[in-house]
């Protein structure tokens, strides 16, 4: 009942406007530095993860050049772990490649969602963006672009460049550290299970919706049922079945919500 003004929403709005004005004023060099600074918290995850990859891949029998080949040329953690796991299971190369690519298919979504923001960029710039398009550089950039829709193309590219440098270079260096350390780790330590634990830790936070849970459940059941098939083949059946399940559950949920909201469909 009191007529006292509520200052908080207005202050927040003002702060947002101010942040946007600051973002719009930045030179490309300043936007680049801004991208670097905002990426730093992610290094808490990226660096240990890359060290772990270096250690595990070395333990699996890869030499330093091969380990670095993965982190520089593939530059995608989950698929690197997937490939090394399947290689140490002696799966055929074609299955290793298909599984690794399947893990990375989500990046097509990132590519599609960045395009409206980078349409005016040159082909060469877009080619570099594609190289450094990892989960974290995508997540940071798309948030930044959506929060400040009036940024210029050079400001957008520079911000992305900052995140790319701050995230990808440490990924490579930390891989090298892990591979070097890995050679010194005695065999008694149970590193065989480092990879399963890493995968589980990556999956668990993704299980947000019934559709994600259903996709995960179907994939697990089929993978266990088909475990007798030649190495890696069960995965190529179980994973698409899980994906289809997730898509189906999502579609049914949406249809039900639309019906409940009274929208004919």
């Amino acid at each position, binding site marked *: 009942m009191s007529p006292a003004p509520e200052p908080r929403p207005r202050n927040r709005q003002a702060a947002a406007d101010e942040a946007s004005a600051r973002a719009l004023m930045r030179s490309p060099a300043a936007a680049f530095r801004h991208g670097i600074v905002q990426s730093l918290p992610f290094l808490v995850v990226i660096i240990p993860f890359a060290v772990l990859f270096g250690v595990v891949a070395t333990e699996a029998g890869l030499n330093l050049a091969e380990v670095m080949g993965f982190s520089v040329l593939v530059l995608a953690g989950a698929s690197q772990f997937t490939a090394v796991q399947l290689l140490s299971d002696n799966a055929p190369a074609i299955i290793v490649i298909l599984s690794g690519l399947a893990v990375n298919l989500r990046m097509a979504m990132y590519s599609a969602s960045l395009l409206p923001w980078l349409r005016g960029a040159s082909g060469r710039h877009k080619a570099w963006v594609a190289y450094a398009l990892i989960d974290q550089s995508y997540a940071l950039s798309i948030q930044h672009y959506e929060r400040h829709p009036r940024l210029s193309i050079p400001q957008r590219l520079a911000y992305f460049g900052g995140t790319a440098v701050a995230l990808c270079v440490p990924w490579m260096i930390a891989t090298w550290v892990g591979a070097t350390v890995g050679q010194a780790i005695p065999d008694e330590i*149970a590193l065989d299970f480092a990879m399963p634990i890493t995968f589980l830790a990556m999956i668990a936070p993704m299980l947000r919706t019934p559709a994600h849970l259903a996709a995960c459940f179907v994939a697990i059941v089929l993978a266990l049922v088909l475990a007798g098939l030649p190495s890696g083949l069960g995965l190529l059946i179980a994973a698409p079945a899980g994906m289809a399940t997730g898509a189906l559950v999502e579609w049914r949920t949406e249809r039900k919500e639309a019906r409940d909201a009274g929208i004919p469909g």
Partner: protein
Amino acid sequence: MQASPAEIWTVILVLGVGTYLIRWSFLGALGDRDLPGWVMRMLRYTPVAVLPALVAPLVVWPAATGGAADPARMAAAAATVAVGVLTRNVMLAILAGGITLAGLLYLL
């Protein structure tokens, strides 16, 4: 690992080029073309389908025990998932799993 250096480098190069093309797809070649809705829907579930399918047999039949189910590794897997779901923090989940495994292997 039985793969020869040539096989390993083939995997690295083809996976590298293929991954690059996936990332470049819409920014470069496909442009504004829309993928059908069901394709986008399936793409959303690639990580939660591929990674569990890869990891499930490794948890149930660990290579280190010659494929025999192992309580320490099962418990470590359960601890990792539990902490990951509750905290949504990948590094904390890895730590929980690693400590559980090391602790149980030491005790059992």
